[in-house]
């Protein structure tokens, strides 16, 4: 028996606006009363697995990088476990936060995450998914936060078996979800809000 208890409507979204830094990364725009910005450090000690750096830009429809975006990521540890209260499969790496928050650089637009290569987690019907990171983007001009995922271009076999990637009708667009390996532990992942390379965004 499946039913709704009490049909409330989700609160409507409004843009994060140009000053999202004040509330979410206050030490980025000026000195603040917080000792550090949440989500800036994803590793609080030695971590298991491969440490990686992901850098990228968010581009608008004119091809200009956004310099006022906020990007958040959420992912499991190297063993595929989430540091979340509702993770029931085991205990995640205590030195790994799983969640990161980065802003586009105010001059260049570059964002950066220092994290670990995620392990695998089951998807619909228990089929294992390829390693991926959940991404959420907000900025001035974005009326409702955009969800997407980072997969890895050096995970060819896992990607080819992934239950979400294989649903994508235009397989050419799959590459918009792939971080490109740029050296040992280094990946590039650009997000295109519009245009011929528009990133696939999700409605989950």
């Amino acid at each position: 028996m499946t039913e709704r208890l009490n049909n409330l409507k989700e609160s409507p979204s409004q843009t994060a606006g140009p000053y999202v830094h004040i509330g979410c990364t206050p030490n980025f725009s000026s000195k603040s009363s917080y000792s550090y910005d949440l989500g800036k450090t994803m590793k609080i000690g030695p971590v298991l697995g491969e440490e990686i750096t992901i850098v990228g830009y968010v581009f608008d429809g004119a091809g200009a990088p956004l310099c006022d975006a906020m990007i958040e990521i959420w992912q499991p540890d190297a063993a595929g476990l989430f540091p979340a209260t509702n993770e029931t499969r085991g205990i995640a790496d205590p030195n790994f936060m799983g969640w990161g928050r980065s802003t586009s650089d105010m001059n260049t637009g570059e964002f950066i995450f220092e994290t670990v290569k995620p392990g695998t987690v089951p998807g619909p019907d228990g089929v294992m998914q390829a390693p991926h990171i959940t991404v959420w983007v907000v900025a001035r001009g974005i009326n409702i936060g955009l969800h997407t995922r980072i997969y890895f271009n050096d995970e060819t076999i896992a990607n080819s078996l992934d239950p979400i990637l294989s649903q994508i009708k235009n397989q050419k667009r799959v590459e918009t979800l792939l971080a490109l390996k740029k050296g040992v532990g280094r990946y590039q992942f650009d997000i295109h809000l519009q245009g011929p390379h528009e990133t696939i965004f999700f409605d989950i």
Partner: protein
Amino acid sequence: MSLSVQKGKFIPRDREWQPEALTPAYKSSVKRSPQAALLSFPSTLSEETSPIFNNNILGPLDNDLIFNHAKPGESAIGARIIVHGQILDENGIGIPDTLVEFWQANAGGRYRHKNDRYLANLDPNFGGCGRTITAENGFYEFRTIQPGPYPWPNGGNDWRPAHIHFSIFGYGFVQRLITQMYFEGDPHIKLCPIVNSLTSKEAVDALTAPLDMKRTIPMNCRAFKFNIVLRGRHQTYFENRKEGL
């Protein structure tokens, strides 16, 4: 007979109720709105889990914007208010232990941000930034000053209604939400292109906080009530019948 609840997939978002990506009267949306259809699939563990925030990240004044940026013995200028409410999911269940962040302009409508060039003065005692973690049943509150309306470069003469920005987490990463709270009776609400990205009067009302005289502190502070609803999961009930019944 007892009833046990098992949580299912997240209920799909009502995209007709939420603002469209492209709302041309809000000019920044023109080049920043995706145009292809979104890819839909049922939530997985990646979306059904969410980071943990403990109360130990909070400083003692994080929920008091009147004092958290003020010099000793001084305080922010403006009409003192309490903003309070409950963070709920669509099933009406309060969400405890979740992070709520808020930011706003000062009483003159000026943000403490290097890109804000509005000629209204900064208040040296006002930072405009606060946060809290919800209590049991999802209740939250903070104290601040009522922000002023401000002009913004959009249509030539656009003014934002007074508002407070909110960022909320929840128990699943797909609940992640950023929104804005408006104040009951503000004449700028119906003129604002960002407010008008909303699709109905009901949606605007859902973001408009009424004056709450019950929580007002006489001769001290007025109060506004603002509940926030995050997405919910399908609830599946299993009847656990006792043997022999």
